[in-house]
């Protein structure tokens, strides 16, 4: 998408379109008209002018250009559309981004002609020029495009310069990382390199550090910063008993080794990775497998997986070799990083969607790893940083050759491939075996259901009236016998194979026990492909009666249709089924005659009916009935057994085979370099750019040589090259920001020219070098920082120091940090005594393709914010973020968030005071406080320890006494007190 800058460099080498299809046409009239060119206008007879004459140009061409084109395509227009100048002959022939506007003599090769014919871009956009005018232009071009206009075209303004890479590399962030020792050897108390660098800078700024925070504050800070949770009772006691550097180190190491560390720091990276469990946007598709990426992060942080390995996995894991299935799984799952962005899945123009996805990936990789806003270069050279648009498309080619989306979940709506993850052969075999068992059991159930149904039909048929089955009927022509449909009487049924129309028939002869009125019923298996107009003839007392039978439905499901009641005088009668002119399959199964009176009676014992060919005695009917009942019972029992077997199988299912939300390289023919998309337009393509990287980050042409694949492997290697000037700096700076409250570069996602400069460049580089040399490991880096004096400084305000350094750029004190939403919630659940520390996995299981319908249906329950698990495990469903967490500034998963905003909105206060969940936790915590002691002092101490991890002082005591008054022994009063502490600032800030 094009972007806007107030500092647009008009004339800089914009690669703009001849005509921008999205650009609305400005219709402000120009202040000059053709008469401005009066001296040049030949006022002679225009009719006489030939197309190769100046006269022709001045009378037919120039006025049109001035009236319809100059507004956007002249040196005086506000923004030059397509960098095309039409106000000089030279400008026209040099052309704009799409090439020369006019090729003298070549009508079809002249873009200007195509544009005014509305064949390519449609110019002018506010209406097609009259045909006569277009013919004038064609003649003019054909005759050589005579153009007397002189003047310097504006075009060359931008053409020459481009971006100077050499001077670009002089910018601090692109210079190589290099070591320079601090001016003073060590901090005053001797020891830590970080403090030496900081102290040097403080001296230069004329400020001194404020001194360490009190022990309780330091421990609370450390615990939340490292694990996202308050320190537990045991640690508090141990530390307060001996707040020595040795104890500090031990506690630091314990916390670094705890699961809480991995969960908390994984969440930091999830902000950058715009982690979510659904797509959001217009089509909120469930990301069923995103959790695996979260799980991968947590395990990686727990094991201190080197960051260079993590970068390689996240960019190109699918292409990396793996030692075993375990590594292969991690490799695949890590690439979920590239898939997590929110996408306009219903975009019908799939070329547009593809490039939008690529853009999101380029921008994410740029900001996450390099702190560069590459998205700016999609449409034009970066306005501030030395990133030409060609460099953007060098990277875009890599992701364009990568398959992110594939296929459609419904018409026009894109989806992605689920990548099977390797599993142990036994596990795959078990799943296969289980599926086979499921299938065969389901089959068996189906046929058992058929058997039950048949047995029942047989009963219904046999217990009433006279039945003639198809096998006793007289066939004329050839019928096909079948048992394909499961509803039939006897051993099967006949059908006409939807053919031999008019040639075949079937005659059922029946002997009724006595004359009278009978209902005639026919059995068949109904269906949409059956005939709706089967002619049936019945020999009744009124003669042969024709009835039409619709076999598509049964009037008495599942398989009987009544043709009506008829009177029969002659006990010997017949029914004929024909297939003349029928419009589908004709089925013939059994015919049943039910005496009209018996139909009304449910008790069949007094009926005088029997099967054809039987002697009609009651004993026989009785015994047959018993036999039928037994067979129904047997069939039902079998079915019951099978159904419980199926239940058992379903309950015993092995876990489903794991799938990842992973990218893959596109098939070879689709891999290739990307053209520059002029102004980001998918239909306006420039030259292909060889896939590669940013030239400013090193010497050489930064292209990928002969890559078989997309180039992601090469990109990953380039990013993790120890000489890359940005990646280690950006990562180290992120860690520093999380611990110290501000980055050394405060714009943590922007290390470019528009970002801030580092406050301590030498310190940043020193840490980056140690980080890379130490194997890109996070834990030693965190350890190094939290053991420094700087980290343990008080956050107290000091007017003198603030005077010299109001923004605390020299870190003379600790920055006071707001707890992240997750920690606030976790701490409340923890104080309530109910925090479930078990990890959670696939919380999105059970959700459909869409996490919520587009019909306006609600799934407000998706977030489960009241669950007792750690917040990192709560589903992040885009569009349904928990209001409580949003009010506390959780990262917006639609955006890459390197540094969360800290807001103080009234809405936040309202949520903290009024949320039912928070009130529930406050009540539980309040009860714990109340139950902890019988005394005011004991309860107050417990409350402060539980919520603020410190002891109350005299002032705190006074406030509590004032609030509680005579309610010191009321549990409700203590619950209210704790609720207010939850809503207070001290609880959610780290001093």
């Amino acid at each position, binding site marked *: 998408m094009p972007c806007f800058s107030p500092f647009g460099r008009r004339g800089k080498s914009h690669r703009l379109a001849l005509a921008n299809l999205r650009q609305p046409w400005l219709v402000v009239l120009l202040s000059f008209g053709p008469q401005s060119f009066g001296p040049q206008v030949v006022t002679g007879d225009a009719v006489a002018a030939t197309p190769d004459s100046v006269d022709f140009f001045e009378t037919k061409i120039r006025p049109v250009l001035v009236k319809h084109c100059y507004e956007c395509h002249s040196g005086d227009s506000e923004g030059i559309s397509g960098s095309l100048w039409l106000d000089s002959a030279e400008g026209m022939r040099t052309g704009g981004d799409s090439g020369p506007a006019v090729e003298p003599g070549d009508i079809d090769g002249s873009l200007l002609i195509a544009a005014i014919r509305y064949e390519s871009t449609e110019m002018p956009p506010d209406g097609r020029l009259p045909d006569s005018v277009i013919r004038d232009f064609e003649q003019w071009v054909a005759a050589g495009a005579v153009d007397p206009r002189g003047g310097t075209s504006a075009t060359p303004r931008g053409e020459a310069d481009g971006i100077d890479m050499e001077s670009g590399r002089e910018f601090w962030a692109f210079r190589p990382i290099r070591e320079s020792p601090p001016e003073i050897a060590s901090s005053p108390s001797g020891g830590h390199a970080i403090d030496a660098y900081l102290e040097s800078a403080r001296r230069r700024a004329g400020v001194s550090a404020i001194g360490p925070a009190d022990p309780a504050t330091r421990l609370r800070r450390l615990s939340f910063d490292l694990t996202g949770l308050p320190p537990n009772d045991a640690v508090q006691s141990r530390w307060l008993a001996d707040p020595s550097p040795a104890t500090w180190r031990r506690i630091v190491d314990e916390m670094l080794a705890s699961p809480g560390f991995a969960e908390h720091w994984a969440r930091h990276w999830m902000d950058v990775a715009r982690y979510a469990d659904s797509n959001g946007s217009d089509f909120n598709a469930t990301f069923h497998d995103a959790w695996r990426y979260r799980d991968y992060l947590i395990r990686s942080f727990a094991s201190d997986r080197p960051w260079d390995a993590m970068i390689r996995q996240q960019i190109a894991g699918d292409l990396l070799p793996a030692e075993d299935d375990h590594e292969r799984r991690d490799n695949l799952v890590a690439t979920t990083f590239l898939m997590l962005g929110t996408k306009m899945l219903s975009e019908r123009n799939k070329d547009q969607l593809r490039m939008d996805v690529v853009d999101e990936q380029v921008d994410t990789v740029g900001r996450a790893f390099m702190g560069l806003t590459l998205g*700016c270069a999609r449409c034009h050279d970066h306005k501030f940083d030395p990133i030409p648009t060609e460099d953007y498309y060098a990277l875009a080619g890599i992701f364009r050759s990568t398959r992110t989306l594939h296929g459609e979940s419904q018409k026009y709506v894109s989806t992605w491939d689920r990548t099977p993850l390797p599993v142990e052969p036994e596990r795959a075999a078990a799943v296969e075996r289980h599926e086979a068992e499921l299938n065969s059991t389901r089959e068996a159930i189906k046929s058992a259901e058929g058997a039950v149904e048949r047995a029942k039909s047989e009963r219904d048929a046999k217990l009433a009236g006279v039945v003639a089955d198809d096998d006793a009927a007289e066939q004329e022509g050839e019928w096909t016998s079948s048992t394909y449909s499961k509803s039939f009487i006897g051993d099967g049924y006949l059908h006409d194979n939807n053919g031999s129309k008019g040639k075949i028939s079937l005659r059922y002869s029946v002997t009724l026990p006595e004359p009278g009125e009978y209902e005639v019923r026919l059995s068949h298996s109904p269906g949409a492909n059956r005939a709706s107009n089967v002619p049936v003839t019945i020999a009744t007392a009124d003669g042969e009666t024709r009835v039409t039978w619709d076999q598509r439905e049964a009037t008495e499901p599942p398989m009987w249709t009544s043709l009506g009641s008829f009177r029969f005088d002659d006990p010997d009668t017949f029914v004929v089924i024909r297939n003349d002119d029928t419009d589908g399959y004709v089925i013939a199964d059994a015919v049943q005659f039910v005496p009209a009176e018996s139909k009304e009676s449910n008790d069949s014992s007094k009926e005088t009916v029997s099967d054809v060919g039987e002697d009609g005695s009651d004993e026989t009917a009785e015994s047959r009935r018993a036999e039928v009942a037994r067979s129904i019972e047997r069939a039902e029992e079998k079915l019951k057994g099978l159904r419980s077997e199926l239940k058992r199988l379903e309950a015993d299912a092995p876990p489903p085979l794991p799938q990842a939300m992973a990218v893959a390289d596109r098939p070879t023919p689709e891999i290739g370099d990307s053209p520059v998309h002029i102004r980001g337009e998918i239909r306006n393509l420039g030259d292909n750019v060889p896939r590669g990287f940013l030239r400013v980050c090193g010497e050489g042409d930064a292209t990928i040589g002969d890559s078989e694949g997309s180039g992601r492997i090469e990109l990953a290697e380039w990013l993790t090259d120890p000489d890359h000037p940005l990646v280690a700096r950006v990562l180290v700076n992120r860690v520093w920001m999380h611990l110290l409250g501000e980055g050394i570069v405060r714009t943590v996602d922007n290390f470019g020219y528009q970002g801030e400069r580092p406050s301590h460049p030498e310190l940043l580089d020193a840490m980056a070098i140690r980080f890379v040399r130490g194997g890109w490991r996070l834990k030693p880096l965190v350890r190094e920082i939290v053991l420094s004096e700087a980290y343990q400084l008080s956050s107290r305000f000091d007017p003198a120091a603030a005077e010299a350094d109001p923004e605390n750029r020299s870190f003379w004190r600790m920055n006071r940090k707001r707890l992240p939403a997750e920690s606030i919630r976790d701490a409340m659940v923890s104080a309530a005594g109910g925090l479930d520390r078990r990890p959670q996995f696939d919380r999105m299981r059970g959700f459909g393709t869409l996490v919520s319908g587009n019909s306006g249906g609600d799934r407000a329950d998706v977030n489960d914010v009241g669950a007792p698990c750690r917040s990192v495990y709560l589903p992040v469903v885009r*569009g349904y973020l928990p209001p409580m967490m949003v009010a506390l500034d959780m990262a917006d998963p639609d955006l890459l968030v390197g540094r969360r905003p800290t807001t103080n909105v009234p809405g936040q206060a309202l949520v903290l005071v009024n949320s039912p969940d928070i009130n529930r936790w406050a009540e539980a915590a309040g009860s714990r406080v109340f139950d902890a002691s019988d005394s005011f002092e004991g309860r107050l101490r417990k409350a402060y320890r539980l919520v603020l991890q410190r002891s109350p002082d005299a002032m705190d005591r006074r406030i509590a006494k004032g609030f509680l008054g005579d309610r010191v022994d009321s549990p409700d009063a203590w619950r209210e007190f704790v609720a207010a502490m939850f809503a207070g*600032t001290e609880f959610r800030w780290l001093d």
Partner: protein
Amino acid sequence: MQISRREFAAAGGMTLGSLSVTGFASPSGGTSGSSPAVTEPHVVPRAKRVIFLFMHGGPSQVDTFDPKPELDRRDGEPLPFDLPPNIDAKPTLMKSPWRFERRGDSGLWVSDLLPEMAGEADSLCVIRSMHTRGQSHGQAVGMVNTGSDNLVRPSIGAWISYALGSGHPDLPAHVAISPATAHGGPRNYGAAFLPAMHQATVIGRNGKFGDGKIPYLDGPHEPTDADRRFELVRQLNRRHLERSGGDRGIEGAIQAVDLAARMRHAAPEVFDLGRESEATRRDYGIGEKRTDSYGRGCLLARRLAEAGVRFISVSSGQVWDQHGNLRSGHQKNADATDRPIAALIRDLKRRGLWDDTLLVWGGEFGRTPVVQGSNGRDHNPQGFTMVLSGGGVKAGFAYGETDEFGYHARVDRVHMHDLHATMLHLLGVDHKRLTYRYAGRDFRLTDVYGRVVDEVIA
């Protein structure tokens, strides 16, 4: 420790809330408190606030405000030009089931589908030549609400909140009434990268007014308990501030608690529709099944407008999407919205608010003049109608034309970016100068586009 609101607002590193007081030009034109992004109007403001009557789903232009005799004449005949790509309609023309008539003194054409709005025709400014991006709802809904069809951008309400702040000391600047959860949901009234305070406060959802209250304004406890709690929170916070030796973040949080407490007392009155006369409520159709929900939404919008809220959207819910059964579907939607909207116009006029309140009526796109299925219409971003009223726009006026069938906007085309530019212009804001720096760039509501449609401005 008491600090003035000006000092408070001047303190860096904090923002004041989706329920915010940072704003500032009061309804009477005076200012209080701190500075919105646009302190001096770029152009003379004609409106102080916007009410967006969002007809989500896409009402049909050729059945409402854009009569096409040629479509009637050639009903059932093939469309004489190609359909746009990616569309499911058949290339067969289908006339409108509704009759068009000239209305009022202005003679503006309005169909029988909207008889109540037709009665206010002399107050309407109809733009018949709208076009936008997005053949699917997702993109087009993004366009009308955020100016972007595919990328995450702040909503227009957030931009206006950012530009002007709220006109009420204790109320938010931006309120979304019954917005859809679909098609981007919160993104359509969100702040994206603008400070979070500019996101809308949401009342109801999916076209349903619900209880009509600000979320979390009340807790599970008695109001007197709440007051006591707020007071204790204040004391604890002040204690924390003392211990810290002074901290802007804590000061900001303390102010936020004060504001929350004030809002708890101020908002219920503004949100109480029971304070309106029975006649007014009846006029909006409150109490009648079909119009009750949207009527409440419109009446609340008027009360919020009166109180100083800058941008209020009232969504119909995603109901105007008649791929089939155009006649019954559109009729049902018109029955639910037409009367409340007409009542809103009359009510604003009665109270002298119409002149500086800009009403915007429309969907994310229009519908095809060709048939889909047997009796529906497909999406049509190529040409459709939006209607303005009040705040500085011409009245009883129609602008722009679609082609003879109402398919493509042809004459005096107005892109969605142009409409946004015009809306900001009417509020005194130059869309090119309202920018926000994020991820290394200065962003605008109108991206690099937008033209103020001077022709519709009175």
